[in-house]
């Protein structure tokens, strides 16, 4: 049955030479700006690296390490976003603006959402403070939060992943 397929299959059945899978991995890399995917299991291994022939643009660009600027923890953590989604429908909620990320309405208060919560498109999932303004950020898509990427009070910029969500 199809539901068994993509990643759900037992390893013994995995055919690493499946072009479709490699293509999915590559698209994954594009989406997340990865420089390399290296999957091994038992004797199996799939490794995909990105970067144009002229690597020095790519290298600093693509690797999270390089994107992360000194004293700027935000990107460093974005290694998180590299983990391949376990489902086609898992997408990233990204920051629409530059500012400081707050997971909750006030210091000390619980976060707006946590992993496992179901949210609507208009559910507020965090606050981004910019120019003394506290902007409430809606999920933008309905679904279940399956991962948090940004950390409380860290600076974020445009396109920076905040949450992973399994869209309905």
């Amino acid at each position, binding site marked *: 049955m199809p539901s068994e397929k993509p990643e759900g299959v037992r390893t013994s059945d995995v055919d690493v030479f499946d072009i479709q899978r490699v293509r999915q991995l590559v698209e994954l890399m594009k989406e997340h700006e990865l420089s390399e995917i290296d999957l091994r299991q038992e004797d199996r291994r799939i490794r995909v690296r990105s970067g144009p022939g*002229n690597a*020095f*643009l790519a290298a600093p660009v693509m690797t999270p390490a390089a994107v992360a*600027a000194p004293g*700027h923890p935000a990107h460093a953590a974005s290694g998180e976003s590299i983990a391949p989604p376990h489902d086609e429908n898992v997408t990233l909620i990204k920051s629409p603006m*530059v*500012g400081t990320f707050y997971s909750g309405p006030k210091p000390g208060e619980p976060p707006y959402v946590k992993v496992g919560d179901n949210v609507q498109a208009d559910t507020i999932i965090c606050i981004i403070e910019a*120019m003394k303004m506290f902007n409430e950020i809606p999920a933008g898509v309905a679904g279940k939060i399956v991962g948090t990427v940004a950390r409380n009070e860290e600076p974020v*910029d445009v396109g*920076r992943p905040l949450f992973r969500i399994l869209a309905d």
Partner: protein
Amino acid sequence: MYNRILIANRGEIALRIIRTCKELGIETVAIFSEADRGASWLDLVTEKYCVGGPRSADSYLKIDQIISAAEIGNVEAVHPGYGFLAENSHFNEVCRDCNIDFIGPSPEAMHKLGDKNTARGMARASKVPVVPGSDGLIETEADAVRVANEIGYPVLIKATAGGGGKGMRVAGNDLALKSALQQATTEAAAAFGNASVYLEKYIEHPRHVEVQVLADQHGSVVHLWERDCSTQRRHQKLIEESPGPTLSKTVRKSICDAAVRMIQNAKYHNAGTVEFIVDRENNFYFIEVNARIQVEHPVSEMVTGIDLVEQQIRVASGEKLAFRQKDIRCEGVAIECRINAEDATRNFMPCPGRIESICIPGGMGVRFDTHVHAGYDVPPYYDSMIGKLIVHRPTRAEAIATMIRALEELRIKGIPTTAEFQIKVLQHKDFVEGKVDTKWVERTRL
């Protein structure tokens, strides 16, 4: 002095500012658009923030995003470079409201000089010659003839609502004036629904000469001599040089003094450029003030040995100028060619694309400021300039020879550039003899 500044720009000028900051030990925060993600100059900064999409309007012009980056980046000042928000007095003001120094003039000075009429008035008040004309509109034919005879023929008839040459006429005598006036008003009425016109002296074959000025916040103003930027097409400069090859010693002194007077009276500080047109008799007339660092600033740096971006940062932080006018030398001759990703054979059509390979000129007296390299994709969203080739030699003849060999050394594969066109200009008798005016490129077949 600042510990940390944000650079609200990209490409060549962002790199230019980063270089000086590194030398001064100042940390840099960069902003970038999605199109510039991973660009090589971003490897050199302390921190960087993506402020939006590829289009300028979505990123490099997004004041709120840039200010947010400045705040989380915790900078003390913003350097706007040129273009984008460099002469946006609102952005300038927002920075001040957020207690972030804007590395440039005050919003007020920027605003005043930004308005052509106010600037023109300030020039008059500073006894700086402006192109003579009818102060105000021309009511009657008689009126026109009187003014024309005051300022002297040939005269230019301009529509107040004008633009793109519409409603413009040149007249060489009373008779021509009357008919031209007729046509101009009709055309203006048709084109803009506003028939009002005014008169201005028509300057034939003008050269473009600008004076680099530097002013601190303590009232000290100096000039870094002039630049001649007459080699241009449709007001886009292609080649700039210093000193101006056609100015007599006395004219040179008075044009530089005029610029200083004007900047002083405007209570202007930081770097600025006062632009003039100069006619064949070396009469000069004020046009406008550029309240920013300019693309062609390196030619002034070469002849004076003064790092203009360093001075911008120093005076913005409140320092006094460390030198007086008499300390500012003008040694040798500097020429700059703007290398644009354009096809000169197809009316300078911009040609973004991938630079497959590039050989960069070097050697004695050669400076090449560029952010590009083999494998770089010139994005279609921004200015087509990919580098500035500057030479500095003892004489103009040597400078021209060095520039030609440097342009020949600059071999770029993947996209066309203006380099070949510039070689032809530099080899042309008119350029060598200093006979190029602002219309020369358009009228000359190379």
